[in-house]
Every structure is written in structure tokens, then in C-alpha cells.
């Protein structure tokens, strides 16, 4: 049984005994963000899944009717008969069964040939370019961090930015915005003495007393005092959401799925998540690529499928847009160790109920390569502009520095 927002608000503070001891200024803040039933732009969520290492787009969306494909990478090409056809030109990798299901229902959009000019083949540099949305890497703020800056802080949302992992993904970085980073639910709690768990509550209360009683004239006094309050708030809110949360599906056993499950708890718990982030690593397939890539694609598609079904079960699927990205694709020509080296253009996926399924952008031409690499057809900032304008209804040029065209990836019936 899912606890609704109304029930939560009726329950108010009494649902949150862990906060009762906080001093009044901390307690006064409302824990759970308001969330309209329809997804108005202010209540929409973007979930970003980073495929770190460089995904081989050509073995993800396979041009199975193009002879170049089989000529250029004979040792790793996916045989025509194994491909899951999407039309008479391209098809999914055979492990993308769950993506095929979403595609057939019209909930999956594929943007092809995404990249930028003068591509960097360094993970480090290309990742920075994507994260900061600046091919010259002069900006040192994430594009989503810049978006989070524009949000109305008075809403009191606990988690406008929520990243699952250990460190901050730099696309969410802004010096003005605090992003919550959750590695696991247990690590986002005030841990106590495992031998005396009953003592934790009293100890944590005493700690709050100390933060109240510490001299307030030192330069950082307010920072520590206020941050401890925010920490209690966000930790308790997440725990509360966890208690209330009933997963609508069985998540697969992968760390990506585990991360998405945390995001689902926060989203279905109405914690005010505007941007969620989770990473799946391992895409840097230089050697013996086929089994590794197959496993990664299966993990990705199954985890995202479960997440989407879970959102549906909670009636949240209309509020959430899911997007994948990877810092580059891979070389069109395979190497001698049955793998692929760093490349350029890469497909981006959009999933969700708001999405109008289909192909977007332009498929790169395998007959017109540049140093064995694809020529990109869609600037990655067009993808970002699509999200900012079409989903968040915020002017993209203010965040991206200039105007980019947008893609019509959203359903016409979507409320604005």
C-alpha cells in the first residue's frame, strides 16, 4: 500500500518521531514537497542514466541491412538473424528485449548520431564536455546544476538533485546547489553503535543539543548548525519514504537496478526530486567485447524496464522522463582483440510515458567515416535543449549559452 501525500501531510510530524527533538527552526520546515497530481513542469523529474566508458552504439542499434557494418567489424558484428528488427534498416541488440517491449508500446525514443565537432577521444575530456555542456571546457558547472539553480528554493524540496553513488556527478554540480548523494539507504542514516542500537536515538538527540549549544560566533557556526538540520531532514525523509515504499515490481539483481530503486523510493515518496542520477560503468569495451557488451545491455534494459514499470504501478510514470548518455561511441572498425577503441557519435535513449517513441536525429552514414569514426549528426546540446525546453519548460539558451534546436520527442497530449 502506497502512502499518499495527503496521508503523509495529515500524519505530519507524528509520522516522523526521529525529528521531534529537533529545535523549532529545523522542525518547522515541511518535509514533503507538494506535488500536483498532473505533471506540471515544476513537478517533473528527469532521471539520468550515465553509461560510463563509451557505449558501442553500432552494436546497440544495429544497421543490419548495411554491408559496411559487417565489413568494418567482422569479428564483433551481431549476425543479421539475431538482431531484433525495429524497421528494415536497423534493429536492437538481441539482449535489448525489454527495450523492444518499450519500443513496441511507443515509450522509447532513440536519438541517433549524437556528438559534437572536433570530438575528444579522452574519457576525461569528453565526459567533461558532456557534463559541462561546453566543448571548450571553459565552463566548470554542470548543465543540470545550472538548471537546479533556477528552481524556486521556497518550495522547500528536500532532494531537488539526488545522485545515487559515492561522489557527485559533475553534470549536477553548481556552487549554488546542494545535491544529495546517496550511496545506499543504510549509509544515509545516522549510524549508531551496532552493539547498542537502542542507544542511537538518545545519542543523536544529544548531538543535536551540542549543535544547538555550540558557540554561534565562529565563522562556520551557522553552516554546521543548518547543515545538521538539513541532514536530519533529508535522512528522515528518505527513511520515511523507504518505510512507505512498496516496489511495484521485482527489481533485477544489479547495482544499476538498486540505484534506480532508491530513485523510485524518493520519487514515489514525493521528496521533490527534480533530477535523479545513476551511473552504470564498464562500457569501455576494448577487448573481447561481445559478452561484456551483451551483459551490460541486458542489465541496462532490464533495470530501466523494471524502474518504468514501478513508476507506472505508483502512477508516477507521467511525471518522469528517463534519459541515457555516454561520453562517446566507439570506433566503427573493430580492433584485433575483438573489441573497439574510443569513437565519436553515440545514440541517446529517452524512455517514459511522456515520450513519443521513434527515431530522432539522423543516422550516421557508415559509407562516410572520418578516421574510421562516425560523423556526428545531432549536437548533444540539442538533446539537452529538448529536455530543458520540452520537459522542464525553461529557456535552454540561458543554461546552454546559446540557442539549439529541439527534438519533438514528447507526446502531444502532455500537459504544459
Amino acid at each position, binding site marked *: 500500500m502506497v502512502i499518499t501525500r495527503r496521508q503523509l501531510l495529515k500524519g505530519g510530524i507524528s509520522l516522523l518521531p526521529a525529528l521531534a527533538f529537533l529545535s523549532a527552526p529545523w522542525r518547522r520546515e515541511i518535509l514533503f514537497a507538494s506535488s500536483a497530481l498532473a505533471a506540471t513542469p515544476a513537478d517533473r523529474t528527469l532521471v539520468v542514466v550515465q553509461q560510463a566508458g563509451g557505449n558501442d552504439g553500432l552494436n546497440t542499434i544495429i544497421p543490419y541491412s548495411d554491408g559496411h557494418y559487417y565489413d568494418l567489424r567482422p569479428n564483433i558484428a551481431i549476425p543479421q538473424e539475431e538482431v531484433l528488427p525495429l524497421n528494415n534498416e536497423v534493429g536492437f541488440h538481441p539482449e535489448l528485449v525489454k527495450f523492444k517491449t518499450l519500443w513496441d508500446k511507443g515509450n522509447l525514443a532513440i536519438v541517433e548520431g549524437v556528438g559534437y565537432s572536433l570530438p575528444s577521444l579522452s574519457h576525461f575530456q569528453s565526459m567533461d564536455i558532456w557534463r559541462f555542456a561546453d566543448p571548450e571546457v571553459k565552463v566548470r558547472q554542470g548543465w543540470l546544476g545550472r538548471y537546479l539553480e533556477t528552481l524556486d528554493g521556497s518550495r522547500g524540496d528536500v532532494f531537488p538533485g539526488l545522485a545515487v553513488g559515492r561522489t557527485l556527478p559533475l553534470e549536477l554540480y553548481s556552487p549554488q546547489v546542494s*545535491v544529495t548523494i546517496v*550511496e545506499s539507504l543504510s549509509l544515509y542514516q545516522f549510524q549508531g*553503535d551496532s552493539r547498542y542500537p537502542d542507544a542511537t536515538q538518545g545519542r543523536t538527540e544529544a*548531538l543535536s543539543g551540542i549543535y544547538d549549544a555550540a558557540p554561534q560566533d565562529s565563522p562556520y557556526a551557522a553552516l554546521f548548525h543548518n547543515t545538521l538540520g538539513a*541532514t536530519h531532514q533529508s535522512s528522515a525523509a528518505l527513511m520515511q519514504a523507504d518505510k512507505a515504499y512498496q516496489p511495484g515490481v521485482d527489481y533485477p539483481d*544489479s*547495482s544499476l537496478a538498486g540505484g534506480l530503486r532508491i530513485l523510485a523510493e524518493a520519487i514515489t515518496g514525493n521528496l521533490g526530486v527534480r533530477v535523479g542520477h545513476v551511473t552504470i*560503468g564498464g562500457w569501455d569495451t*576494448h577487448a*573481447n567485447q561481445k559478452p561484456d557488451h551483451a551483459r551490460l545491455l541486458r542489465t541496462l534494459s532490464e533495470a530501466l524496464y523494471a524502474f518504468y514499470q514501478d513508476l507506472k504501478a505508483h502512477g508516477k510514470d507521467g511525471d518522469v522522463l528517463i534519459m541515457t548518455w555516454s561520453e562517446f561511441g566507439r570506433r566503427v572498425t573493430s580492433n584485433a582483440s575483438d573489441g573497439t577503441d574510443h569513437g565519436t557519435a553515440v545514440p541517446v535513449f529517452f524512455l517514459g510515458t511522456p515520450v513519443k517513441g521513434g527515431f530522432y536525429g539522423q543516422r550516421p552514414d557508415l559509407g562516410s567515416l572520418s578516421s574510421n569514426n562516425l560523423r556526428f549528426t545531432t549536437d548533444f546540446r540539442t538533446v539537452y535543449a529538448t529536455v530543458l525546453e520540452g520537459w522542464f519548460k525553461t529557456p535552454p539558451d540561458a543554461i546552454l549559452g546559446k540557442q539549439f534546436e529541439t527534438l519533438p520527442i514528447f507526446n502531444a497530449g502532455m500537459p504544459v
Partner: protein
Amino acid sequence: MSGLKPQSQRASESGSATTLAEVLVSQQVAHDAALPSIVLSKNLLDRRKFLIQAAALALSGGALVTLLEACTAVKPLAPSPEPMPIALSPELTPTVPPPPEAATETANLSPTPTTAPMPAATPPTGLATERARIGHLLRRAGFGATQTELDRFTAMGVSATVDYLLNYEQVDDSALEARLNGLNLDLEKLVDLQRWWLLQMIYSMRPLQEKMTLFWHGLLTSGFSKVGKGPYMYAQNQLLRKLCLSPYDQLLKAIAQDAAMLIWLDSQVNKKAAPNENFARELMELFSMGIGPYTEGDVRQSARAFTGWGLRQKVFNFTPEQHDFGTKIFLGRSGNFDGNDIIDIIMEQPATAEFISRKLFTFFAYDDPAPEVVTKLASTFRNTQYSIKEVMREILISPEFYSAKAYRAKIKSPAELIAGMVHTLEIETDGSGLPAFADRMGQSLFNPFDVSGWPGGAVWINSNTLLQRLNFANRVSTARSRRFQFTPVETVRRLGLSSADEVVTYFVHLLLDSNISVQEHNILVAFGQGLNILGEPLGSQSPSVDEKLRSVVYLILAAPEYQLA
């Protein structure tokens, strides 16, 4: 890069706990297996052993606590630790008797089994006593101090202690080397590099050398994320350690030819036909003058002077065919300059002396020093042929360093917090799991936030990082395993503490200079009420004594004052 190895698959499967850097690292391992040994200290670590051990250490965050239990050092805490062996040369021994206040304090705090006349909770005194000044000095110029060290250095006094810290090469640190040798660390792996350095910070008898290395790592920085090779990062760290108090021109010239730096700032692709300005720009903007006192033209001319500097066989190599031997006009001077000439010209600039003096002062003392403070240090810098050692001496004995403005004016970085806590409480550990705690607090050593290191200050504190700091305090205060052990009961018995008030007073003295508000003291004592039976026979003491003792220490380690240096 070479292909995926099983360990990298594991790393990527545990993706939520694995940073991309770690994934990339593990993939790098196989590729670089044939690096020569020149980058490794001959006596410190055996490469072959690392590779054998390589698979064992992929950390998943969920398993972290388990790992800490399972993988930490086997050495149990000695019941009464040997006093710190100080290899002072005669001229460093204090020649004057310590001031009376210090002598009194030392007498009061000597660990004696029978009596423990603890000082009562006192109102905040800042840096009024020699004991408080020594505590402050060792937090800033080191990683905190044990009770034994506090007693010893307080007896020596500030001046002799500063000499001791600066003349670190006279201090025997062989115990540290022996400790690190036994660990079979794999320097190809970021997490092992981080462990290695944290252990240096915790157990080195040369605290200022480690603190200076951390300072330089934040200034003349490079990052594993781009360099990609553990041994290069290790070699750079050893270079910074070796030259940490050297004349600054020597340090800059060495770092300009350091393998990791050559990669980090793209020197190795800086060629005559197409100069890359990355290093030339940061050399002035970040390493010496600060943005402003030079033009874009100076950047371009400087880049020409560094063309042809690159790597061959993993070491610095000059390629004459790639070097621009033409005349350069740089900062108003003209000549056929090479990179070393450029550094010499930069050293002569007044801006350089001011910039480095300010960086050092703000790292060690406080932010935004008055202009005259910086000017004085800058003149020392120029008058001593750019001696970092003399600038540091001046900072560490300056009235500003011991002023109210300096006291608790810095937020401890995660490395300082972790190393300081483990060091001060004399915890035995092999460092497993410590890098992950530092990561979560926002500091991945060897992987700075960006080319300018870590921003520091208030940026260290947000709801997540504060929680991780508190949970680390919990981890330390409740460490009961033989391999990661903190035993406050032993301390209490040894010192004969017999009430909550005495326990609180002792630990607040050790960890917070006896300097907290009366209300905080009262909260701690009230919380520790259960400890008032300590004076009674052992049999009457319940297990809750253990819980209460550890909780009191937790509360002190988690207090806002403890987050400050």
C-alpha cells in the same frame, strides 16, 4: 587502454558504489603491467606482490563496513603505546625550561595509573595556553597529536616544536616504512594509493612533511582520472614530499618535468607546430602569479618555450625537433628561452612571491590575511632565494598564526579529519576502507576536484558529507574489532577516571583543547551519567559503561568544533 579484466567487470557491476575513475583504473591495470620500476621506491613496495594481490581489493560500498572489519591490520593496540621516539638532534632540544603553565599541565596530564586530577571545564580560552597553541600547531602543521605528543611538545614549547617540524629529515621514520612494506599495496590502483598516503599521514613521525605534501597536491595538482597511471601519481607524490620545503624554483622545475604533470596539463602534446598552452597557462595562473599580471601573449610565448617537453619510456624527455628555438618575448624579457628560463623569470615577479605566500598562509592559518601579513612573507620569500622552509617558519611562529582569528578558522578536509582522528586516538589500522570514507566526504586523494585542487572551506560541508563525517566518528568510536580497535575503557582505567565529568574533561582536553561551551560540557556530562559508577568495583559495572564511554567520544568527534582545525 586494454581490455576488460574480471575485476573491472566486478567494479562495474557494483556500479553504484564505483566511481568511473575506479572502473577506468581497473581497466588500466592490465595495460600498464610492464611499467619500469624507476617510479617506485626500491625499498618500499614490491611490484610483483601488488599484481598478485590486485584482484582482492575491488571495494563495493555496501560491503565497506564488513571490509573494514575483515581487512584491517592484525596488529592489536598495544596496551601502553611506546612514547613517540623523537630523534632530536642536540641543537633542537629546548635549551630553556618550558614555561610554568606548560610544565603544570604536563604534570597534570601525565598518564599515571593512580591519580587523575583533571582540570575542571573551563570557559573558552582560545590559544591562551601553551598546550592549546601546541594543539593548534599540530592540527595545522600536522594531523593532530596523541596525548603523549601533546605532553612532549607542550614541554618543548612552540618554538622548539616548530624547529622539530621543519627539520623533519632528522626524525627517524623507519617504523612507517616497515609498516607500509608489510601491506602489499598495489600502486596501480587508486584505492591502494589513497590508503598508502592516508597511512603516511596517520603514522608518519614527520607530520609537517605530510601536511606540506597535501598542500602541494592541492596546488601543483594532477589527477588519476586523466593521468590514468598509478605509478606516475605515486612518483609525483614522492616528488612533492621530497621537495616540500625546498626553494620554490626547484620545486616548480621538477614538477614541470614530472610524468603525471606532463600528462595532466598536456605538455606531452605541446609541439612546435601546434603549441598547447595548458601547462604554460596554469603555470602562471595556478602555480605562481595568479590570474592578471600577464597577457595572453605571455601565455603563448611561454608555451613555445616548453615545446618538446614530453615523456619517453615513462620519464621526462626533451625532443629537440619539437622544440621552438626561436626568440620569445615573455613578461617584458626577450631571448631564446626554454622552460627553465621561463620559471626563473616567473620567480622574479613580485606577484609570485605574494601569490605563494598568500597560498601558504591561507592554507595553514586563515583566509583573507591583511595585505601587510602577505607582504612580509613575500619579502622573506624573495630574501631567502624562494625558500618555502623559511616562509613556513615565519608563518608557524607568527602572532597571526596564534591569534583568535586563526583559532578554529579552517574546516578540516576529509583527509585531515580521518588521519587526525585515527592518529589522535592511536588506532591501529592498515587503512582499508579509509579511502572510501574520504571519497564520501568529498575528497578522493590523487583525484582533485579540478586543476585548482579542492575548493575547501564551506564547500566541504553539505548534508551528505556532514553525515559521512558523523558516521566516520561512529565507526571510529565503536571500533571493537581486533583489527580496528579503539579502547576507551583502557584509557579510563589507566588514568583512573571515575566519573562522567572526569571522562568528558579528559577527552575534551585531548580532542578539543578543553575548549567547548559550558552548555556543551553539561550535555556531555548529563549524557554520560552512567559513567559515574566508574569508581566502583569492576564487577558492579554494566556493559552500558562501554556504550556510554564510546558515545561520549562519538559526541565529541561529531561536534561542530571537531570539524574545525
